[in-house]
C-alpha cells in the first residue's frame, strides 16, 4: 500500500517537473494580466482617469448592441467557412505530397510560400486580384461569360473574399502539420494491409485517417481558436468595411480599446468571446471519441 502511494507521489513529482516551465510561464505572464482584464470588464476605464465600477453594464450593453451581434455573426460565418475548407484542403494537399511524386519537395516549398510572403505583399496582390473591373479573377470569369461580383467592395461577397484569401494562406501551414502527422504512421501497417489486399481507398479510411486523427483534432481546435480571433486580414484589407460587412469580433475589440478608449467594454467583449470559444472547444473534446490515442 505504502509503496503504491510512494510510487504515485513519485509519478506526480516527475509529471510536475515536466510541466513546471510552462506552468511558471502561466503564473508569471498570463494569470495576472488576464485577471486584471477581467476586473476591468466590470469597470468604465479610459486609461487617463481612474476606473469606475459599473457592474455588468459592459456585458449587458452588448446584448442590445447591433454592432456586437453583427460582428459575432460575421466571425461565426467566417469560422464556419474557413475551418472546413482549410482542413479538407490542407489534408488533401498533404496526402498528395506525401506520395512518391516527382518534384514533391518543390511543390511542398511552393505551397508553403504564402506562409512566408510578406503580409503587405499578400494584401496588395489580393486586392489587385479582387479588383472588380480589371482584376485577374473577374477577367478570367468574364472570358467564360460570367460577370464576377465586386468581391471586397460587395457587401455580400466581402466576407467570403476574406475567407478565400485566408484559406489560401492557411493551406501551406496546416499542410506542414498534416505532413508531420503522416510521418508518424508506421509503414509496417501499410505493408500488412497491402498483403491483405486492401485498396488504396481502404488504406486511407482504415489506416491513414485514424492514425493521424490526433493531428486532425489539433488542427481543428487550433483553427477554431484562431478563426474566432481573426483580425489582421480584415484589418489590413477592408478595415471591417464596407459598412461592417467584414467587421469581426477582435477588430471590434481593437477599435473599442484603442480607437474609442473604452477599455472596460473591450474587456467585456473579449470575455464573451472567450466563453464562446471555450464552450465550443470543450464540446469538441467531449465528442473526441474518434481521436485515436495510444494512452
Amino acid at each position, binding site marked *: 500500500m505504502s509503496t503504491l502511494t510512494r510510487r504515485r507521489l513519485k509519478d506526480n513529482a516527475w509529471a510536475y517537473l515536466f510541466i513546471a516551465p510552462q506552468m511558471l510561464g502561466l503564473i508569471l505572464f498570463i494569470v*495576472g494580466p488576464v485577471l486584471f482584464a477581467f476586473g476591468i470588464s466590470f469597470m468604465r476605464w479610459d*486609461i487617463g482617469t481612474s476606473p469606475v465600477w459599473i457592474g455588468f453594464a459592459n456585458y449587458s450593453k452588448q446584448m442590445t448592441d447591433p454592432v456586437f451581434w453583427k460582428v459575432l455573426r460575421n466571425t461565426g460565418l467566417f469560422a464556419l467557412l474557413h475551418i472546413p475548407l482549410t482542413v479538407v484542403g490542407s489534408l488533401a494537399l498533404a496526402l498528395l505530397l506525401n506520395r512518391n511524386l516527382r518534384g514533391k519537395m518543390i511543390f511542398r516549398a511552393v505551397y508553403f510560400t504564402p506562409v512566408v510572403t510578406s503580409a503587405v505583399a499578400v494584401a496588395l496582390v489580393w486586392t489587385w486580384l479582387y479588383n472588380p473591373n480589371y482584376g485577374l479573377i473577374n477577367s478570367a470569369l468574364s472570358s467564360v461569360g460570367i460577370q464576377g461580383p465586386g468581391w*471586397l467592395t460587395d457587401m455580400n461577397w466581402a466576407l467570403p473574399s476574406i475567407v478565400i484569401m485566408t484559406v489560401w494562406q492557411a493551406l501551406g501551414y496546416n499542410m506542414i502539420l498534416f505532413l508531420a502527422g503522416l510521418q508518424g504512421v508506421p509503414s509496417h501497417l501499410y505493408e500488412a494491409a497491402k498483403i491483405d489486399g486492401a485498396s488504396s481507398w481502404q488504406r486511407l479510411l482504415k489506416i491513414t485517417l485514424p492514425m493521424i486523427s490526433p493531428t486532425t483534432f489539433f488542427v481543428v481546435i487550433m483553427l477554431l481558436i484562431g478563426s474566432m480571433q481573426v483580425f489582421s486580414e480584415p484589418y489590413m484589407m477592408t478595415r471591417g468595411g464596407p459598412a461592417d460587412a467584414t467587421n469581426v469580433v477582435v477588430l471590434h475589440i481593437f477599435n473599442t480599446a484603442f480607437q*474609442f478608449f473604452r477599455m472596460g467594454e473591450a474587456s467585456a467583449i473579449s470575455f464573451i468571446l472567450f466563453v464562446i470559444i471555450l464552450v465550443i472547444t470543450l464540446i469538441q473534446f467531449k465528442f473526441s471519441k474518434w481521436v485515436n490515442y495510444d494512452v
Partner: protein
Amino acid sequence: MSKLSLKIAAVSLIASLVLSGCSSNGSSGSSSGSSPGEGSGEKVTLRMSIVAGADEMPGWQGMVDAFNNAHPDTEIKLERLPGGWGEYVQKMTAQIAAGDPPDIGRLGVVYMPMFSSKGQLEDLTPHLGNFDKSQYYASALEQYDQNGQMFGMPTGVYTMAMYYNKDMFEEAGIPLPSSDWNEAWTFDELREAASKLTKGEGPNKQYGVYVNLNPERAIQYLWSNGGGILNEDRSKSIINAPESKEALSYLQSLIQDGYSPTPADTQTTPVDQLFQSGKLGMLIEGTWMMPGFSKIDSFEWGVAPIPVGATGQPATPNFVDAYVVYKGSKHVKEATEALKFFVSEEAENILVDNNIGGIPVLKSVADARKVDMFEALSLEEKEVWFQSVEISQALPFTSNWQELMDTTMKKLDLVGFGRLDAGQAADELAVELDKMLE
C-alpha cells in the same frame, strides 16, 4: 473603489512582488528606472517619441540636436516608432497606463481632443512663462489653447487644396483655374471640367476628379455649401441640413457619373499613385502630398483652390498635429521649455530646411521662407497654400471623434458604392450621431 477592484489590486500587488523578486537578480533596484534628476546641476534626460517616415527623420533629429546644443542641462532622446498612428496610440496608451510615458510626443490632431479630455496630457500653461502667442497663426494655436488650458503646441499647418494635371487640362482645352481662393471654381465648374477630363475604359481609364467621401477629407464641400457635420458648439449634427445633403448628393453624383474612381478602384491603386501616373485630372488632397508629387517629371501639375458651393465662401480644413507632454512625465517644466523651443524661429527654420512639418506656425518664418518652401510651384501657386492657412478651419473634433468618424464612414461607404442615396444616408446618420453626442 469596490471589493473586486481591491481584490484585483491585491492580486496584482502580490504578483508584481513575486515578479520583481525574480527580476532583481540581474539588475539592481527595481522601481526607479528613470528617477528624476534630483537636485540641481544634474542633467535631465527627456524621452521624446514620435511616429514618422524614414525620410522625415533628418529633420526631426536636426531639430532635437539643435535643442540639445542650446541646452547643456537637458538632453532629449528622440525615439521613433516605425508604424502608423494606430500603433503609436496603442503604445502611448500602454505607457501612460503603466505610468511610464515618454515626456514629449507628437500627436496627430484627431487624437488630441480624446487625449486631452481623458487626462492623458499635461497642461502647459503653468510653465509657459513669456510665451508670445500673438506671433503665431491663430487658426493653428487656438485649437489647443482653450478655457485657460493649453495641451499642446502646434507642429505646423497642413491644409487641403486641389492638385491638377496641367497637361490634361491643356489637352482638354480647359482654362487653368486661378490661384486666388476668392476666385475659386464653383461646384458646376468642377463638374464640367471633370466631365471633359474623363475618358477611356477599364484599367487605363482617365478620371476627371477624385471624390473622397472620408468626412475628414470632404467636410470643406459641406462648409462652402453652408452646411457641415456638427453645429457650432458640437452638440448636434447638421449633416442632415439641406445644405449638407445637397453637397453630399453632388459628390455622389460625381462618382455615379463615372468622373471619379470608385472606392473599389482606389482600393487597388492608391489615389496618389493614380495622380502620379497621369490617370487622374484633379485631386483634392492635403499639403502632405507635396514632397511625393515634387518628384513627378512626366507631366506638369499645379495647385488651385478647392471649388466652392452655394455660399461662395472658400473653405478648407486644417490639420495641425501637436507637440505634447504626456501625463506622468516627471519633467513637465523642462519638457514645456523644449516645446517652446520647437516652435521657435530656429526650430521652425530647421523643419523648413528639411521640407517637413507643413507651413510653419510662426508667421515670421512662414513669411521669410516662402521662397524656400514648395519649390515645385510657381510663386503665384505657392500663395494657394499660404492663403489657405488664413481661411482654414479646424474640424469639429469631439472627445469621441474616432467613434463619430467610424459611424460616418460606414454610412458614406454605402453612398460611395451607390447603395444608399446621399440624402437618406444623411438622415440616418444624423440620428446616430446625435445619439453619440448626448
